[in-house]
């Protein structure tokens, strides 16, 4: 029986890890559908960003209360997962609480700490559920989240509550047995008398074993849910912070192709002879974006801080930076599936512009960088907006009449207004 359980554990673990790796590789492949962009310079700054922004959650502290709550769940989740090491080894070796003897007095201390954290995580998850479903905070009831994204957030919170509950019940069942002589633990100790009252030792063994198995199976399920969920940010926040652009946020990505073209126009003697390859300007679809834009999309937690800070969104315009990120991920998933099915991308008559993101949304952006400033995981929705705008203007000549007038004024009068360049210094001649 023992060996069978060990074998079963190995098989389940192996399958869970294999499936997870497969999905992560799939996501990596999708991200690499994006255009290359070198983001390896200044490793010192990048490591610092990763430590401060991802590990230290610096941006979360723009709202300290929520930051502390989030930190509890995050730290709790990571620290409690240290316990996973023992669980894994127990499962493989068929042992029971392998670390109890070698760690001696330290062991109950550790378990007590884990239990307190587990309780805190559980409580915060309840608070988060209340914020989403009872208090209905504005950014959580937004239409961006209609359907699956709203359930996704709730599923994660409920799963965390269940997992923490299983961990506590497992400890309670074990310490409730009459064969157990040590002290009960800090939190599960409160369940012990109830268990002793309700269950026999045989039943307690079954409860303990069941909780152990459900806990580990739950964790594997959670692991494999990540690639389909907004919760992927717990992993991608790290590379996303590392590869964040280090330029000032006010600096737009330079289009060297256009720079060269303009140079040849101004100095025709420098222009190479012969036909040059046709150019594509900006982005119509996800493949036209940089790989960093695509990793941004997979890193998005759909928290909506960007949209809450967006001046256009706040004043009722259609634009929502969060939706831009969700649309990009949805379209990228669609393209990825298309490639998986057909070997290479087969035209499906869709693209990111129009089919996902409307022109009206793109037009409403003031490029104010509030969304970029707010994002706790180093995403730039603005970068995607600007690339889509470039395609609208330069590929489709799709601009509002007023912008066309502005362009022609700049071209002819060197100012965005229809005023003579000769009058540029007219103010110096007035008093």
């Amino acid at each position, binding site marked *: 029986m023992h060996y069978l359980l060990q074998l079963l554990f190995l098989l389940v673990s192996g399958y869970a890890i294999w499936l997870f790796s497969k999905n992560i590789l799939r996501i990596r492949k999708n991200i690499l559908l994006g255009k290359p962009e070198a983001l390896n310079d200044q490793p010192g700054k990048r490591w610092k960003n990763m430590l401060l922004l991802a590990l230290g959650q610096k941006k979360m502290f723009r709202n300290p209360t929520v930051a502390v709550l989030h930190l509890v769940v995050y730290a709790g989740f990571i620290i409690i997962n240290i316990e996973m090491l023992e669980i894994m080894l127990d499962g493989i070796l068929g042992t029971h609480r392998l670390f109890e003897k070698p760690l001696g007095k330290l062991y109950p201390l550790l378990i007590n700490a884990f239990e307190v954290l587990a309780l805190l995580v559980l409580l915060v998850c309840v608070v988060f559920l209340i914020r989403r479903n009872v208090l209905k905070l504005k950014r959580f009831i937004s239409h961006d989240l209609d359907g699956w994204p709203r359930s996704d957030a709730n599923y994660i919170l409920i799963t965390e509550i269940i997992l923490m509950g299983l961990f506590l019940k497992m400890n309670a069942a074990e310490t409730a047995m009459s064969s157990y002589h040590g002290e009960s633990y800090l939190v599960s100790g409160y369940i012990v008398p109830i268990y002793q009252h309700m269950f026999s030792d045989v039943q307690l063994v079954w409860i303990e074993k069941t909780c152990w198995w459900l806990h580990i199976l739950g964790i594997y399920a959670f692991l494999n849910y990540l690639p389909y969920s907004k919760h992927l940010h717990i992993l991608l926040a790290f590379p996303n912070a590392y590869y964040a652009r280090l330029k000032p946020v006010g600096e737009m990505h330079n*289009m060297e192709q256009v720079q060269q073209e303009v140079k040849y126009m101004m100095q025709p003697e420098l222009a190479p002879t012969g036909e040059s390859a046709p150019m594509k300007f900006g982005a119509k679809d996800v493949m036209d974006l940089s790989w960093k834009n695509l990793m941004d999309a997979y890193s998005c937690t759909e928290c909506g801080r960007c949209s809450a800070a967006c001046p256009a969104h706040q004043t*009722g315009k259609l634009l929502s930076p969060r939706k831009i990120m969700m649309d990009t991920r949805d379209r990228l998933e669609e393209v990825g599936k298309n490639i998986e099915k057909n070997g290479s991308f087969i035209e499906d008559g869709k693209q990111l512009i129009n089919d996902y993101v409307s022109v009206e949304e793109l037009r409403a952006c*003031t490029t104010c960088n509030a969304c970029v400033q707010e994002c706790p995981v180093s995403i730039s929705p603005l970068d995607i907006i600007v690339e889509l705008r470039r395609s609208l203007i330069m590929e489709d000549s799709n601009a509002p009449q007023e912008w066309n007038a502005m362009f022609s004024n700049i071209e002819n009068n060197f*100012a965005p207004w229809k005023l003579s360049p*000769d009058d*540029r210094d007219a103010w110096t001649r007035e008093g």
Partner: protein
Amino acid sequence: MNVPTMANMMAAGETPEVLFWVGCAGSFDQRAQKITKAFVTILDKVGVKYAILGKEEMCTGDPARRAGNEFMFQMMAYQNIQILNGYEIKKIVTACPHCFNTLKNEYPALGGSYEVIHHATFLQQLIDEGKIKMKDGVEFKGKKITYHDSCYLGRANDIYEAPRKVLEAMDAALVEMKKCRSNGLCCGAGGAQMFKEEEKGTTRINIERSDEAIETGASIIAAACPFCNTMLTDGVKNREKENEVAVLDIAEIVAMSLG
């Protein structure tokens, strides 16, 4: 006004300490011209040796680039850089955060590298160096002023303190809006929005922001950007508060306090 141009300076064999980049708004917009004149008044008073490009200055290309028209941007950038490099310009000051951002952050990749400074920082430095002397019966003493952060000065370039320090030097009582500094709400003009109608929504961005400013009870809304100035002035007018609340540029505030 006697405003020296680069061409005249060159002809006279002189070089200015700093080039004053006036910008399209500062040159053509009647409201922004007043800011330009106020800044020039300060430069003259302090005795800074400066020059403007005059008719040789062109739009930096900022609105074109942000609308998505990279060709137009590159054309303007190319021509401006030719002129600036031709005059061997080293240092530029401008009263427009959009020009500032483009000149400082975007021209270097195109071959135009200069020390670019926004007038907020420039004024703060002059005050710190004791070069700006105030009138005795100080104009703004104890007056409630709220400062509106320009996106391209604040979030884009991390300049939050300089304009505030300038206002504090005027002995004004600075009050902050709920959304300030990196949380500041845009005036609605950036990203070429200045040049087109807003999309359909529940309210206009400039009205939202002006309301936030009016709510502070300040009698002056200070700005450091000609476009923010226009947007907020319109917003204040929309609420028929123009007699109680003035929208002024920090350069105008300093110029009015000059001794």
